[in-house]
């Protein structure tokens, strides 16, 4: 038992990889066995994460729980150092929940099933590692390692323009991480260690000349290097152009993980690294970040409303929703330098809202991509104008789609409302103009969600489809049901998850 509980994070982290290695030994033609095995393997980290949740106690500021440390690369001052706080725990739950659901969704993959499942499990390790790493090099390692399986998932199992989309995806993200890598190296050289806790103690206070330049200049450059890397991943306008292509071309399971988890890595980077390591620069430049986030909210919504392809519409909606996350983070970054207790209280609310929005968007985006995938599997088209009146023949599917869309739209009583309300409430006293503009974005969120529903479900039935589309099946309901339950439970009683987030966020202010 001790072996399990002492290294709980390592187990969660590496069970998918160990499982992937075991899958290598299974002959490729045993498709059913491979699918089942992949599903079972991916459920194990979820169960262990629940165990983690049950045993979690809030650490004081700057400290972490379930810590593990082992020598890894002492020559450069980097070690295998894991640990979590409440925010990471929420992200771990999201990742370990969505991965089995995405794998269950991918039971419809028929070609090269073994390779698909192996890549998917390795991807999970990469994502989980980012949320656990307490060493900058380890963070970067996991940050990058997830790109490779995702590249191949899009490139091999994607839609028509998959070559273009996958290369764009990996070059954008790798190009972005270049600055992250260089800035990380620079910090490591200045501090003499890559250990996050040590860096946190030394780096923000470092003054004087660096490389013959004033420390403020160097830190500002490093700050932007970090910000650009994370902004590409989120993505914040104008770094978003890889996203619609990648999300649209990826296979359904891949889109669920891309939108559900990978985008959160960027936002998590802001919260875990950017604000703690660059508090002064973050406060100074937070206005710029807020402006870009607002642009993402507004342009994301407007672009989504203009789409003709259902999947592309959902892809643009991610830009819109993630804009709120970054706006909340920007407000919190600015408030970090303020002493007024009312401002700081608003910042706490905004940051709580951002983290909850990350979780909520993970649920709703994964759900939406999944539902688009369900329709595409049957109709082999995603053009909105080809549908119409489908509710008449697919009532169950239609109801589920309406429910999920409403969560995404922010209907009170469902999860999206709680987090977006908190962000609006928290940001209002800090960036009044930006949040007011963001409300226009919110209006267009309503426009594009309702437009999608109208064109697919309502109106006269497009006779072309009558008798050709089958209702959503049991496996598919099993995928969407947990997401719907969570959407409703957070909408009605958010405190089960907010308490955890809030206790961590409170230690930062």
């Amino acid at each position, binding site marked *: 038992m001790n072996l399990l509980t002492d290294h709980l994070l390592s187990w969660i982290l590496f069970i998918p990889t160990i499982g992937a290695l075991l899958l290598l030994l299974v002959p490729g033609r045993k498709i059913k066995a491979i699918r089942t095995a992949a599903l079972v393997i991916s459920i194990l980290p979820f169960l262990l994460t629940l165990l983690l949740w049950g045993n979690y106690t809030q650490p004081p500021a700057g400290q972490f729980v379930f810590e593990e440390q082992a020598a*890894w*690369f002492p020559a*450069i001052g980097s070690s295998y150092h894991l640990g979590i706080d409440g925010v990471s725990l929420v992200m771990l739950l999201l990742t370990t929940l969505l991965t089995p659901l995405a794998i269950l969704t991918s039971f419809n993959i028929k070609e090269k099933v073994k390779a698909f499942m192996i890549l998917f499990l390795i991807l999970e390790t990469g994502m989980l590692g980012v949320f656990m790493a307490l060493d900058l090099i380890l963070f970067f390692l996991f940050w990058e390692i997830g790109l490779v399986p995702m590249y191949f998932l899009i*490139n*091999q199992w994607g839609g028509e323009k998959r070559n273009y989309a996958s*290369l764009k995806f990996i070059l954008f993200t790798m190009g972005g991480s270049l600055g992250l*890598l260089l800035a990380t*190296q620079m910090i490591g050289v200045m501090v003499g260690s890559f250990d996050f806790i040590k860096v946190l103690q030394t780096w923000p206070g470092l003054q004087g000349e660096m490389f013959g330049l004033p420390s403020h200049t160097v830190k500002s450059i490093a700050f932007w290097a970090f910000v650009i890397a994370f902004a590409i991943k989120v993505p914040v306008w104008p770094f978003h152009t890889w996203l619609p292509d990648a999300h649209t071309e990826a296979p359904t399971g891949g889109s669920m993980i891309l939108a559900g988890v990978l985008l959160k890595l960027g936002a998590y980077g802001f919260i875990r690294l950017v604000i703690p390591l660059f508090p002064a620069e973050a406060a100074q430049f937070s206005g710029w970040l807020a402006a870009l986030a607002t642009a993402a909210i507004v342009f994301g919504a407007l672009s989504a409303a203009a789409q003709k392809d259902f999947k592309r519409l959902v892809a643009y909606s991610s830009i819109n929703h993630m804009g709120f996350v970054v706006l909340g983070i920007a407000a919190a970054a600015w408030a970090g330098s303020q002493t007024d207790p009312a401002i700081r209280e608003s910042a706490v609310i905004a940051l709580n809202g951002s983290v909850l929005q990350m979780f909520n968007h993970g649920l709703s985006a994964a759900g939406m991509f999944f539902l688009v995938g369900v329709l595409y599997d049957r109709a082999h088209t995603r053009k909105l104008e080809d549908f119409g009146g489908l509710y008449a023949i697919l009532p169950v599917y239609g109801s589920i789609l309406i429910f999920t869309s409403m969560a995404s739209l922010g209907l009170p009583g469902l999860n999206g409302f709680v987090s977006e309300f908190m962000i609006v409430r928290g940001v209002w006293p800090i960036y009044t103009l930006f949040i007011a503009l963001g409300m226009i974005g919110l209006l267009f969120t309503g426009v594009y969600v309702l437009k999608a529903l109208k064109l697919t479900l309502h109106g006269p039935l497009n006779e072309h489809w009558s008798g050709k589309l089958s209702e959503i099946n049991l496996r598919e309901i099993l995928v969407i049901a947990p997401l719907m339950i969570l959407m409703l439970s957070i909408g009605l009683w958010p405190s089960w998850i907010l308490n955890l987030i809030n206790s961590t966020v409170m230690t930062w202010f």
Partner: protein
Amino acid sequence: MQIPYLSFLAFLPLAAAIVILFLPAGKRNLIRGIALATSIVTLILSVIVFFSYDTQNAGYQFQIQLDWLPALGISFHMGVDGIGAAMELMAGLVVLSGVMVSWRIEDRPREFFAFLLFLASSVFGVFASLDLFQLFVFFELAVFPKYLMIVMWGYPKTKEYGGMKLTLYLFFGSMVALVGVLAMYFGSGLHTFDLVALENAGLSVEFQRLWFPFVFIGFGVLGGIFPFHSWAPDGHVAAPTAVSMLLAGVEMKVGVFAALRAGLMLMPQGMRIWAPLIIVLATINVVYGAFIAMIQKDFKYVIGFSSVSHMGLVFIGFATLTPQGLTGAGLQMFSHGIMTALFFAIVGMVYDRAHTRNISELGGLYQFMPIAMIGFIVGGLVSMGMPGFSGFIAELPIYMGAWKTYPLVAILSAISIVVTAAYILLVVRKVFFGETPEPIKAGLTDITLMDKSVVIMLSLIMILIGLFPSILVPVIEAGVKHILVLVGGA
């Protein structure tokens, strides 16, 4: 009595080569059997040397010194430090791989395997030489098999040109280096070629300023330093597969290793003075090599130029003269050796079956040779410095060293990471995925079991080092510790 592992390593392949040359040409199985057995034994010996190297005490180990020409101050002096031990292991792996991928060679197998073992003997000897004269002897021992193998078994269209170019460049380089070495022989007043003695010769700064470039650049030619790099892609492409693997994998390391031993370690002050120039040249290597690799149309040239790019990082590591930079350079020598051997092996496997290396005429090979594809992807990830693979482990310390000394160099050479990612991914996609063009379809078969073993062995080593750097790093660090003592301070 201590077993002379290093001498066995250096002379066993030589002895086997001579035996093979005396066998009747028709006994192909016996010949390749001997070659395989010899390379397995040398790998085992190099593994023993690597893992029994005592990292606590560091310094030169497994030493043996015998009189050779005492009147001239020449002795037979074998021994390795940490870097040498790692290089012996790398060479052992590449030599075995080279023999294995040449298993089915039909054209004059007797001469082919004999020359290959000559080459092996040369590289094992250089990495263990603690006497400069002896180092030169082993160094030059490689010239004749290299040249002959390229012109006899090379790519028909360019073999004469490539072989001649390579030989002339390397002759030129080693002559320049020899001048510098002779200057040390006389200038030190010791009249000895013994490296350990020369390390403590106390050569004056003025002397070092003048003679350092001769030795370092002279040997650096074989390491592919800009602007003397152009033999490398031409030579690698013209050579038969196993020779390309040894040339790019091991011979280029022989060049930088000799530059390190005779240049940097004997004249550290010279290195300090000339470091800015070296680092500018090396940065050009890194960035220019990557861009040129990207526009190549020939599969093998892509890899050839990528070697130019990656070897630049080794020179950057040296020129920083920092613990991290030097450690990274040593790691990169190992990692690049394995990686490029794997690349050339796979390029050879593809060419043997498709009979073309033109990227636009290839495609969809994953259906025919999935293991080769996975190996190429692993090599590609190493090449683009993906964390979790050996390339990252090697490049990271080099970049840290650069940050400490020339921050701008770190930023400039980082451009190559994205460029490398772009060309590797494009090549992977065009060669291994997509549609298979009709003309090449007929010849495509899966790679042989021998080939698969090579691909899997080399891939696993790069992954293992990437995940567990402590396999390799302490040994390299033990070597670096000694270099830092010579360099002083830093």
